[in-house]
């Protein structure tokens, strides 16, 4: 077999192997995205036999003049901002802790990952139990033992407390991801750097600032961007925990499947697309600069 015909065969095989992936991604992601843009300019009829009615920009105009949509958008930014900071910070602190040497380190590392692995539904149920207003352990400790609140806080019904609850839940659930990534970056640092710093008499803080931080900073940066994107369209745990925090994901879901206004929901999706696209774009630019 000649060199060039070998190359041709290679390239044919390469295409053949990637074909199933291409077909699947085109039909389940790319086509729906395009179809969604089409839907967003229509009044979507619920009867499959009736055609959708073209309404130009009406869905978008409805959204932008709707206070509840703008409110949901702001709420989402607040949610993303707090959860990203908290889950990354907690992940970093626990990575620092678990990077030290102690007995049972392996098992401790595996155990703290559990919230990330277990099904959301199970975790939501147990949180509902623990934060129950009458016999929940959380209110017992915060109200009856520590007297932090005058009245038992209504975690699932009060808008601000519910926000605190979903932020806390998400932090607890996703910090293991930040933890794993940061820990891996820390393990990649050459030990001799720390040994040299020891000889120079550097304390732990100096070592962290001068050696650890520069090495893990790129990972932390990527984490912040990824988590911002993922949490921007967060849905399940917030939706399952409380009805009081209508972040974009929940707002979109309700518009589609409770109100059954698919055209409006499609327009929300397009707006989310644009925001997420901007984030992806910024991430890629950030990536290039590094």
């Amino acid at each position, binding site marked *: 077999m000649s060199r060039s015909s070998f190359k041709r065969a*290679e390239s044919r*095989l*390469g295409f053949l*192997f*990637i074909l*199933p*992936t*291409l077909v*699947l991604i085109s039909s*389940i*992601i790319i086509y*729906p995205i395009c*179809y969604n843009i089409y*839907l967003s300019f229509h009044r979507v009829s619920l009867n499959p036999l009736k055609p959708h009615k073209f309404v130009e920009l009406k869905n978008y105009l409805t959204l932008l003049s709707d206070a509840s949509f703008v409110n949901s958008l702001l709420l989402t930014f607040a949610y993303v901002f707090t959860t990203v900071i908290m889950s990354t910070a907690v992940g970093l602190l626990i990575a620092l802790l678990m990077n030290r040497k102690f*007995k*049972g380190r392996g098992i*401790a590392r*595996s*155990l*703290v*990952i*559990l*919230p990330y*692995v*277990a*099904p*959301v*539904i*199970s*975790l939501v*149920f*147990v*949180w509902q*139990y*623990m934060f129950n207003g*009458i*016999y929940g*352990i959380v209110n017992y400790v915060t109200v009856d033992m520590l007297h932090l609140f005058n009245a038992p806080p209504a975690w699932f019904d009060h808008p601000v407390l519910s926000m605190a609850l979903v932020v806390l839940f998400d932090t*607890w659930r996703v910090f293991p*991801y930040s933890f*794993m*990534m940061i820990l*891996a970056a820390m393990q990649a640092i050459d030990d001799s750097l720390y040994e040299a710093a020891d000889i120079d008499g550097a304390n732990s803080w100096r070592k962290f600032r001068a050696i650890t931080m520069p090495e893990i900073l790129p*990972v932390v940066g*990527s984490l912040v961007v*990824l988590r911002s*994107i993922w949490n921007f*369209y*967060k849905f*399940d745990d917030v939706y399952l925990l409380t009805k009081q925090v209508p972040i974009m*994901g929940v707002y*979109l879901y309700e518009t*589609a*499947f409770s109100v059954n206004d698919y055209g409006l929901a*499609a327009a929300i*999706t397009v707006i989310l*697309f644009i925001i*997420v696209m901007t984030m*992806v774009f910024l991430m890629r630019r950030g*990536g290039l600069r590094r």
Partner: protein
Amino acid sequence: MKAKMVKNVILNTIVFIVVATTLLPFYFMLTTALKTNKGSVAFPPQIFPTEMTLQHFMDVLNPAIFPFWRYFFNSLQVAFTTALLAVIIGSMGAYSLAKLDFPGRKLIQEGSLVVYMFSGILLVVPLFKIISGIGLYDNKFALVITCLVTTLPATLFMLSSYFTSIPVSLEEAAMIDGLSRFQVIYKIVMPLSIPAIMSVFAYVFMIAWNDFLFSSILLSTPDNMTLPIGLRQLFSSKDYVWGRMMAASFLTAVPVVFMFSLVERFITGGLVAGGVKE
């Protein structure tokens, strides 16, 4: 010496507190599943159950009382099929991206990472319309395909970075010895990649098993429901029994936690490689 011991004690205490706090909800899940109905609503709340019973687990597992097994097998069917397809289609695609050269390869590689950002709630509205339009609503296969595709970019990334680490010279040597490209893949690359393939299997299984969003819009009859939506429906009424709810939650979490523990060593590395492109 003494200072070092004190330091050690402090370190161990902090580790203990961190691990215990993280696992507290799991502790309450299990102990509440074992509490009696009276014990689960007692005030002050029982941290250690005074009376323990296995009744809730027996109720949950009894088909006459509770459709746990039906949901369980639906979940298993969906998660297993999705993971199996992901391994097959993902390996082919990843091998192509890692080892074969063809026009458009770079574009597909870059594109799949962008696609990774577009899943979940962003696909729900059009997918629902399309899938009900082609008559696949309330069909588990629709859920399998959806979970498969939304995890595919991560699968490709994890597998292709692993395949790339297998030296080309190994494959070339085998081909000089007369093996065809298929034989090389089947006899050399795949056996060497078992850890990566297992972690992809476990990762996709976990995503499909835990999925709530897509199941909730694609499935509607109890016969087809997977555990997350089945449990949500069973326990959405206010007169739920905490013990049963916790027993069902616990049993739902066990398979993925078990599977994860088997491949944890590989998967943590894979997730890292998949998430951060460094």
